[in-house]
């Protein structure tokens, strides 16, 4: 014990001496560094808390009973812990069915999006052809155009779907593709889905950075254009494809715009979430309690629903966090 304090004292004396020699610079710089670190830690902690707080708040709300809402002594830890909210929300929105629907729709859509965006991105990155700049400008245009601008005509387009008037000629009627998933898949195959331009852009950036020698070596060894793509380039691009897939999956999971437009009759989670308060009041009417759902109570239900909808995403995020972040930083995005 004694030796330790002695040693420390010795070190301190040494430090002071060095400080003296440097004219006070050493102490000043160390103090500045320590303060900076402290300020940074406080700032980051605060911001992290800020981001997490609504999530935590919802989490604690979802475990409360209604009377806890009006109890001023309950702030974040529920006094009457209950799982009743989850049970009720599950009943209201048919959670498992909605989850399953959302899952397969999101998987199908994001897979289609990424598959076709990969083809297009590769085409833009590795080939030279006439009008390439023009078509790439079109990709940028797709990123910029708000989907709402073309929503109305797309809506009607698929309501009265026809290929160059052929179908009407044969059957005398156009097809109503409104309430099926086909139009949306078609859109994704044409790279016009949700944020599809962005995926093309990212994938192109990634392919551009692959050295040309790799491709040339493959050609010399007798690979054709397509087998080069499938056997050499695709395996190399796995990280960016994974992260694009993850983004597409997450954004599709929470999207309400396209699903409202095209998937009217499929019960998806985001749509059920927005209608939760309506469903709640219907439910209360149906059991004939004769009271209206209070604002607080329906908010509690919405919070619970949101937690239930987000949890799968959070799990994916935790598992594949690297996929979200690291590969994006390797694309070297530049304008």
């Amino acid at each position, binding site marked *: 014990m004694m030796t330790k304090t002695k040693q420390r004292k010795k070190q301190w004396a040494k430090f002071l001496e060095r400080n003296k020699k440097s004219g006070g610079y050493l102490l000043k710089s160390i103090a500045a560094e320590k303060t900076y670190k402290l300020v940074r*830690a406080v700032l980051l902690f605060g911001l992290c808390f800020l*981001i997490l707080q609504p999530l935590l708040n919802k989490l604690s709300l979802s475990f409360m009973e209604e009377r806890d809402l009006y109890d001023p002594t309950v702030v974040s830890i529920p006094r009457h812990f209950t799982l009743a909210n989850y049970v009720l929300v599950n009943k209201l929105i048919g959670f498992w069915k909605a989850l399953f629907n959302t899952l397969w729709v999101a998987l199908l859509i994001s897979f289609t999006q990424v598959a076709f965006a990969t083809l297009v991105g590769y*085409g833009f990155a590795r080939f030279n052809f006439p009008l390439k700049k023009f078509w790439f400008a079109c990709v940028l245009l797709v990123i910029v155009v*708000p989907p*709402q*601008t*073309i*929503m109305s005509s797309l809506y009607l387009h698929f309501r009265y779907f026809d290929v160059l008037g052929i179908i009407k000629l044969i059957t005398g009627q156009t097809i109503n593709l409104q309430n099926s998933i086909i139009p949306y898949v078609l859109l994704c195959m044409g790279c016009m889905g949700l944020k599809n331009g962005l995926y093309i852009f990212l994938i192109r950036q990634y392919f551009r950075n692959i050295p040309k020698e790799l491709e040339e070596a493959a050609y010399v060894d007798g690979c054709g254009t397509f087998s080069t793509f499938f056997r050499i380039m695709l395996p190399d691009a796995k990280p960016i494809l994974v992260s694009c897939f993850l*983004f597409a999956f997450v954004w599709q999971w929470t999207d309400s715009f396209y699903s409202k437009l095209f998937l009217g009759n499929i019960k998806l989670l985001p*749509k059920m979430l927005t209608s939760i308060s309506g469903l709640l009041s219907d439910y209360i009417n149906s059991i004939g309690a004769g009271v209206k759902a209070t604002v607080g109570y329906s908010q509690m239900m919405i919070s619970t629903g949101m937690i239930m909808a987000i949890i799968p995403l959070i799990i994916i995020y935790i598992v594949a966090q690297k996929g979200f972040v690291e590969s994006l930083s390797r694309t070297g995005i530049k304008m």
Partner: protein
Amino acid sequence: MEKKKKRSDLKTQKAISGYLFILPFIIGFLSFMVSPLIESLRMSLSNVKIVAGSGGFIMEFIGIDNFKRAFFVDPEFNRMLVDEIRKMAVDVPAILIFSFIIAILLNQNFKGRGFVRAIFFLPVILSSGVLVGLEYNNSLLSGMQEVIKKSSAVDLTEVLKQILLSSGFGERTLKVVFDIINHVYDIAIASGIQIIVFLSGLQTISSSMYEAAKIEGCTVWESFWKITLPMVSPLILVNLIYTIIDFFIKSDSKVMDKISTTMISKMDYGFASAMAWVYFGAVILMIAVFGGIVSRLVFYDD
């Protein structure tokens, strides 16, 4: 002679396969983007009537009446649009600066960096799609905040605000600053992708540059302005454009809301298309103005 011919053959072959690769995009672009764009432009210039039963719709050309209606007749549209643009003019720079600062902080070495990064990128999930809209409806939370505000005797920001305002320092600028501070959550939640992009840029700057600057006697402050900022400036442009687009098309925008309700529940396709076109025009204008200003300041290394 023959050699030359062969090379050009390879070239055309490559061009053809290039076109094959981007073919899905071309088809999609022409059928799902160009034709709807033209059609929606036509709709915006006409009165669209749905023909019941047989399928199909007819358009009566009525000139720019729909646009006139959007600007001069409709009571809300003008105000909503101006509000949106004003909000954007404050929010976009704030998001850019915030994400830049956070990216710099997250690029430094400290304990638990991975964890902090994970939290900052979480908004990529949390701010997407329907979740934002629900957040805004959360009246209970804001009610609770009010209660908390009232119950705590001294509101620090309020006091600070009073002091600063009474100091007679430009009231308007201060108001903008307070607005930003009050919306720091919205800003943090909107800047997930931007942080990733900036971070990727920061990681490409070689540390030897900073070392050289340090040896030459640069302070940290100076090397920030002389090295970090110019090297990252192309990404500022990328982020700026991304932020503007993201801001305009996020689902809680009031104008978007109005357009979709006009279209889906009122079936007024012509008017909705006109509004959508005005909105699109505003987006393009914003991108052109801001992008034009920023692209002049961008420094390209190569």
